[in-house]
């Protein structure tokens, strides 16, 4: 089961998202209304720890557990980066969830999350179908 490790890491990730209330619509509203530090603290400290970790990996040329050199692909810019970003932001404030939290909400027993995930799949599918016609 070479995928078991991803299942385990995903499970830990889901527990953290749930226990830190990042998957709560109310928390996202609190963030967009600048009424608490909580969400900024979660995202900010995650980035700081991620940044230090990646620097350590790069400087020490660490390899994966199977001995592969670690490489991280650069993100490619297109106009979609900001247009799509704004579109996602509108949806983030409506649903109070980004894709990760949607799956955690479903697991925690929120029926609405199933509808939200289906709608998100429809959105991804529609983007895929229209991709060639959209500004990039």
């Amino acid at each position, binding site marked *: 089961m070479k995928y078991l490790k991803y299942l385990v890491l995903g499970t*830990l990730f889901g527990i953290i998202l749930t226990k830190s209330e990042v998957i709560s619509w109310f928390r996202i509203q609190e*963030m967009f209304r600048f009424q608490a530090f909580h969400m900024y603290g979660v995202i900010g400290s995650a*980035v700081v720890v*991620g940044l230090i970790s990646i620097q350590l990996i790069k400087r020490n040329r660490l390899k994966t557990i199977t001995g592969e050199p670690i490489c991280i692909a650069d*993100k490619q810019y297109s106009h979609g980066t900001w247009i799509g970003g704004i579109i996602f932001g509108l949806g983030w404030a409506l649903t109070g969830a980004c*894709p990760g939290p949607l799956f955690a909400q479903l697991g925690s027993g929120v029926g609405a999350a199933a509808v939200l995930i289906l709608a998100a799949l429809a*959105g991804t599918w529609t983007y895929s179908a229209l991709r060639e016609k959209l500004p990039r």
Partner: protein
Amino acid sequence: MLDFLRQPWPWYVAGPLIGLTVPALLLVGNKALGISSSLRHICAACVPAGIPFLSYNWRAEIWNLFFVLGIGLGGFLGYQVLGHPDTAAISPETVRDLKAQMGLTDFSGLLPRELFALDNLANWKGWVFLVLGGFLVGFGTRYAGGCTSGHAISGLSNLQWVSLVAVIGFFVGGLVMTWFIYPMMF
């Protein structure tokens, strides 16, 4: 210890643990943290419909679907098994504003029932929050090439300026919805 696990975790515990997921995925299998891609892989697996952007070997990305399955399992363990207070510990100002501006009265659960109850699909509110909201998340993340995990956490951690542009976009969209569109809706 068990008491600590049951309570909501503070940001300085949760944030660093989320950050550690980035090196964990790299060390374990050279994978970059990113969750919205899973939506693309599911579309490619289920309804490719001859669309070029959905015609690729999604099986090579199956690790991502296991990760997402784990997130669902984590939601179950974190909420139902470890247990979690039913009401998020949000600031009193947010409660006050949501009551006054959106007419919310029920602050229990992860999503406000007054907006996300499934029988709301009988009126426009349900369609805006459940269907349009989810659609914008799926459309926007793929168009932007990532979501909060792929851009905000993975991308910024790797000093990608593209991700900074995306994250600014996320906040512009979220602030416009919260401060300009919500007041017109309620």
